[in-house]
């Protein structure tokens, strides 16, 4: 929605983004470099199609149209005409073909691994870009069309080693140009020749580098920045109360924070135990006490609510009714042959107690607090939980290699615009690895051929109704089998001030994932926001 109202606000204003980057800026504007793409992909380099993370709404961007072949193995893009690079050179299909083949040659740059499924990218005689696939991979559209930046061939072809190329003077098609970069700040200036005429309406965007949350939060709270993507503790006092009229926030859920079971070891290979634990967790309490109420409680379907509400099979979920229910949990455990010992902790026939260790990250203070609440919950049921708060490297080492009993945390890959992306990475055995080796997903080593098939079918269809149906079947497995327990939902932190600027994304108008670190959604937000007169 490229927002072409009649009464256009004037162009102008300097918007300051407030987002803890944890490091000084490297003045490198290479959209294929995972450590710096956050400062270029979107506002400088654009994708073919903008695919809204929150609702899978697709908007043609550098492509003016696209079609899937009937077998879902060929994807054809019509390239928008009249687009110019910021150095004045015309943008063409050749740039698109070049960009894709560049990341094919240099797989280090293929951040989304699109060449895992792509077979070729070529320009056909009519000037369209044709992509062929090794297998049908409809969901990969998000990565290919929505997450891959297009770079100018006339500049990038001169780079000897694009992998280690530092791009100091970026040339893109985006709405802004980079006008100044220092370690502590990047300034973006309006691109007057942007292909969406009249946009953007902001003259300047400054993006300071914040090393730590606290100074960033203080900056936001004192009104020196207008757009935040920050975790702010006690936000109502800290932020909103300083200007209740204008200081607002919205935290749309974007992923699940789970308890991962190591399903290869007893008793977590026992469904009854998994279910019992799922009934022993007071998700509301975790959300309120551990997450300040910012992160809503999760639900056992694994589908984010409200983000993907349309995908949720409510009836099925209600049947199980996973909520804090010690009686039910006790019943399940007793059925499975556990008895309560003198210490109040359940134990199996051999006298082995239900006593586990859960790992989480010491630096994530909210997680640590959440685990404390979970410990408390389980104790009421009769399950002992010990927390091991690890430094993040140690934590991920254990998580990825399956070296844990229980783990608290979220998937470490990017979410996507439908529940498919997260659920597949959580459950598909193709993403996992044997214990001791690094898994890309499915850290719990859950193996279920039925669920694998469902995801594979999803990948082969462009039919939305069929996709919904497939996800509902996955939800059934989530509810019955409890391979993981979604406890709370991770959100996109987003604060904004309406004092000087308007046009912000809101729950009512979720035109883009709203955090400054949502790529390339931040571009879309910056195209909508304007200075109030």
């Amino acid at each position, binding site marked *: 929605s490229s927002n072409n109202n009649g009464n256009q606000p004037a162009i102008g204003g300097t918007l300051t983004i407030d987002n803890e980057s944890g490091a000084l800026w490297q003045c490198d504007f290479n959209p294929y470099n995972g450590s710096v793409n956050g400062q270029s992909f979107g506002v400088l380099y654009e994708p073919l199609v903008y695919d809204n993370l929150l609702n899978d709404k697709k908007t043609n961007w550098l492509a003016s149209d696209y079609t899937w072949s009937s077998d879902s193995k060929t994807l054809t893009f019509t390239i928008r005409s009249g687009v110019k690079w910021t150095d004045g050179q015309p943008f063409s299909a050749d740039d698109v073909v070049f960009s894709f083949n560049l990341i094919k040659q240099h797989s280090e740059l293929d951040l989304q691994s699109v060449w895992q499924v792509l077979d070729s990218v070529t320009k056909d005689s009519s000037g369209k870009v044709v992509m062929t696939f090794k297998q049908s991979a409809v969901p990969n559209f998000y990565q290919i069309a929505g997450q891959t930046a297009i770079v100018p061939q006339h500049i990038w072809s001169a780079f000897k080693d694009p992998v280690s190329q530092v791009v100091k003077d970026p040339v893109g098609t985006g709405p802004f140009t980079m006008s100044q970069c220092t370690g502590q700040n990047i300034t973006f200036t309006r691109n007057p020749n942007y292909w969406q005429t009249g946009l953007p309406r902001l003259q300047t965007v400054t993006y300071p580098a914040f090393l730590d*949350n*606290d100074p960033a*939060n*203080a900056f936001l*709270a004192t009104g020196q920045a207008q757009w935040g993507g920050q975790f*702010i*503790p*006690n936000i109502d*006092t*800290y932020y909103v109360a300083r200007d209740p009229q204008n200081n607002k926030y919205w935290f749309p859920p974007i992923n699940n924070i789970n308890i991962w079971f190591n399903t290869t070891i007893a008793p977590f290979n026992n469904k009854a135990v998994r279910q019992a634990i799922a009934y022993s967790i007071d998700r509301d309490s975790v959300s309120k*006490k*551990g997450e*300040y109420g910012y992160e809503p409680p999760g639900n056992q379907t694994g589908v984010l609510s409200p983000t993907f509400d349309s995908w949720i099979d409510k009836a099925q979920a209600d049947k199980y009714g996973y909520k804090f229910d010690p009686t039910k949990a006790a019943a399940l455990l007793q059925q499975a042959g556990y008895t309560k010992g003198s210490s109040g902790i359940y134990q199996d026939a051999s006298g082995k107690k239900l006593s586990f260790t859960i790992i989480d990250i*010491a*630096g994530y*203070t909210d997680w*640590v*607090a959440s685990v*404390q*609440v979970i410990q*408390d919950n389980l104790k009421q049921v009769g399950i002992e939980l010990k*927390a*091991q*708060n*690890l*430094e993040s490297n*140690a934590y991920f080492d254990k998580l990825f290699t399956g070296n844990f009993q229980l783990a608290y945390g979220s998937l470490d890959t990017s979410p996507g615009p439908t529940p498919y992306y997260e659920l597949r990475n959580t459950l598909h055995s193709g993403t996992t690895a044997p214990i001791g080796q690094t898994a890309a997903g499915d850290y719990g080593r859950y193996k279920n051929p039925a669920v694998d098939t469902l995801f594979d079918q999803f990948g082969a269809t462009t039919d939305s109704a069929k996709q919904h149906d497939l996800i509902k079947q996955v939800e059934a497995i989530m509810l019955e089998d409890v391979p993981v327990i979604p406890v709370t939902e991770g959100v996109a932190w987003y604060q904004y001030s309406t004092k000087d600027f308007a046009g912000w994304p809101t729950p009512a108008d979720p035109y883009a994932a709203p955090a400054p670190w949502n790529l390339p959604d931040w571009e879309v937000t910056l195209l909508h926001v304007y200075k109030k007169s």
Partner: protein
Amino acid sequence: MAIRILTDQAPVQTPMVSKRSGIAGTLASALLSNRKALAGAAVLAAFTLIAIFAPVISPYDPHALQFEPILGPSRAHLLGTTGNGQDIFSQLMWSTRESLLLAVVAGIMATVIAVVVGVSAAYLGGLWDHVLNLVTDVFLVIPTLPLMIVVAAYAASGGVAVLIAVIVITGWSYGARQLRSQALSLRNREFLEAARVRGERSLYIILFEVLPNMTSLIVAIFLGAALYAVLAAAGLQFIGLGDTNALSWGTMLYWAQANGALLAGSPLWVLAPGICIALLGAAFALLNYAFDEIANPALRPVRRKRWS
């Protein structure tokens, strides 16, 4: 981080020994007669008592998430509650344990290493001295915090033990250097030579002739090391290197900071542990200052002044 400045001028003190009470008695009476020392000792004693009796005197379980988060100070919660609904006052009392323990244990260990290295360097002399002295200087010059961050980060799950180890590794060299220069000036004192000529073994000479003469310097070094430990531990815990689940003032600060306590309406959560650290640090600093005066009578306060 405490600033400590090194000088090679460690004067050979005149260990004052009073009538029948021996070294310990002398130190005690010297302390009692010094106002700064008295203040420091009082604070230290108070914290020690709090640490010992924390379970008895703290009103609530410091870990329990049993209250409303971010309560202001009230009769029930003298300092309010944390972001997770724990009683700050109770946490403060319990934290005294780890903070004090850390200071004392790390202080003692650093002092022991300092004594061993410093005294051996001076006593063995020659190449040994050269090498040990070089090692000491290297440890002195290498910026400690980066080193600490590196070590502590990798060993964060080790808890207090690792923290102590890190502090000891980075904190012994200062004292070693002072002890060496004092031991050097002692080395040629005639009573040591007398002991050697008498036929004493080297170990006896070091333990019973050299060390007792350095008591007040050793005490001063311990105090300095303890001060360093207090501040270093607080710094490390503040940036989250340490067991964040353990209760100590530095960790409290870490949590308070993570919860934006200063700006989010519970400044006491930041102020209280900070003040405790400062108080404990100041206690060690004052005692240290006083020991300087005890060790070096020239530094004692003068009663009257005349010439300008």
